[in-house]
């Protein structure tokens, strides 16, 4: 196999190796299924409960997407604001940093009081946890404009708005797509965490109920499904990024 091919398949090969080692350890040492189920056992449970899992997974998926959608809108708007105005940057950024340091799981009880058990807290947790990277990246893209380029345009009579639209926004697109990849995985974390305490549906709920009834295989299936969904969305945004902002990734194309 060529080097390039190996590189391409390396994630799958590594996954395969982990599964094999895991299986060997579990069956070799006779580890109890209630402590640490083997991959084959997890797979069997996944198939057995596939209908239930699919239902919960779909719920988690669309709830995450709604929260993520709100995060994109709010993140882009806030990022645009603080990236284009020094005053807004000075005012908003420290508060935002403090806010980002708070564990978002801690918001769930408050959100439950406001919105009750169900989709409300899950959507909002997904949103709260994922808008920050989007905002920061848009703001960075706008704030790091080359001063020479700005002079070239300002001499022509360009208004701030022209500079933002013609240069700032296109320039921050690669940052934006980069942040989407990070944010989508965070959004899944937010939804799952929220569902664990504040929902009767979704993968988070499934994890808790499987754990409390000692169905360890099912609990692991839940984890597997969240991981798979997050990875699929990550790859999707990665694909979009490569095909819309190729100019920012020319280094990797030559490699």
């Amino acid at each position, binding site marked *: 196999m060529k080097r390039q091919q190996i590189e391409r398949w390396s994630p799958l090969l590594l996954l395969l190796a982990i599964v094999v080692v895991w299986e060997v350890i579990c069956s070799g040492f006779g580890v109890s299924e209630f402590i640490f189920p083997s991959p084959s056992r997890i797979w069997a449970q996944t198939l057995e409960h596939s209908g239930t899992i699919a239902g919960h997974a779909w719920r988690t998926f669309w709830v995450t997407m709604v929260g993520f959608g709100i995060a994109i809108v709010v993140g882009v708007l806030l990022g645009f604001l603080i990236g284009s105005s020094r005053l807004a940057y000075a005012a908003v950024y420290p508060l935002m940093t403090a806010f980002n340091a708070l564990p978002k799981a801690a918001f769930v009880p408050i959100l439950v009081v406001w919105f009750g058990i169900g989709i409300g807290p899950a959507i909002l947790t997904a949103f709260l946890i994922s808008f920050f990277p989007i905002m920061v990246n848009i703001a960075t893209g706008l704030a790091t404009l080359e001063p020479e380029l700005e002079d070239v345009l300002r001499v022509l*009579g360009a208004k701030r708005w022209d500079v933002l639209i013609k240069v700032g926004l296109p320039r921050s697109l690669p940052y934006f797509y980069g942040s989407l990849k990070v944010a989508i995985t965070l959004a899944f974390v937010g939804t799952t965490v929220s569902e664990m305490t504040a929902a009767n549906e979704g993968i988070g709920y499934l994890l808790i109920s499987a754990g409390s009834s000692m169905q360890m295989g099912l609990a692991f299936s839940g984890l597997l499904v969240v991981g798979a969904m997050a990875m699929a969305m990550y790859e999707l945004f990665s694909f979009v990024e490569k095909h819309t902002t190729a100019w920012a990734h020319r280094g990797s194309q030559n490699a």
Partner: protein
Amino acid sequence: MSTDSQAPFVHFDDVWLAYNDELLAKNVFAVENINLKVQQGEFIAIVGPSGCGKSTFMKLTTGLKKPSMGRIHVDGQPVTGPLKISGMAFQAPSLLPWRTTLDNVLLPLEIVEPYRQQFKDRRKEFEDRAKKLLTTVGLGGMENKFPWELSGGMQQRASICRALIHEPKMLLLDEPFGALDAFTREELWCTLRDLWQEQRFNVILVTHDLRESVFLADTVYVMSKSPGRFVVRREIDLPRPRDLETTYTPEFTNIVHELRGHIGAMRKSGAVINQ
């Protein structure tokens, strides 16, 4: 041109600039006592050590900065804000990587009036104009390449085209060839010379390459560092058109040597002050 030919195109009348009020109160000026008269179509070069305020001078000329004291007139009008009749190019080509070379060159037309309003309707015509300009600087056929597919010299050519596409009356160049190798630099000297000879816009070239300034300019100003002021004005009376052979003649070398002497003397006295 309605202005009579004797009136200077660029006129600096005892211009001083401090970067902010605090520095102004302390009497610390980035440039001071600048007096300058540039005729219509004149090519001037400003040379001096790094950090002597050459770029500040450029910003004053284009109206990006306002003087703390003194008056600046360009084309008979007092300079009060960004001057749309000028085009700028810098040491870094700063082309936009998501636009093709052609679209990069067209960028000023999307911004500056009156082209801005007409841009959609006259796009074809503008594109032809940009292509023609690119061909004159030797970039014919490169229109659809992205900047990162071009060499450093080609990028700088495109950058100069961008500065000229809206047919400015004044071209401001801030060390435009500083990052290029010696051969490419000399090629671009000739490109700029030909463009200027053909269109006769005003050029203000900031550089620290003395040969470059003597080869291209009608008048060379030597600027001193802190305080940033003009200390020498030297008219270059070498016959035009000049070609690269000129740079090997004794007359040329003598002028370069003379200018070098001024800068050397400045550096020495500067060193004494710093001790």
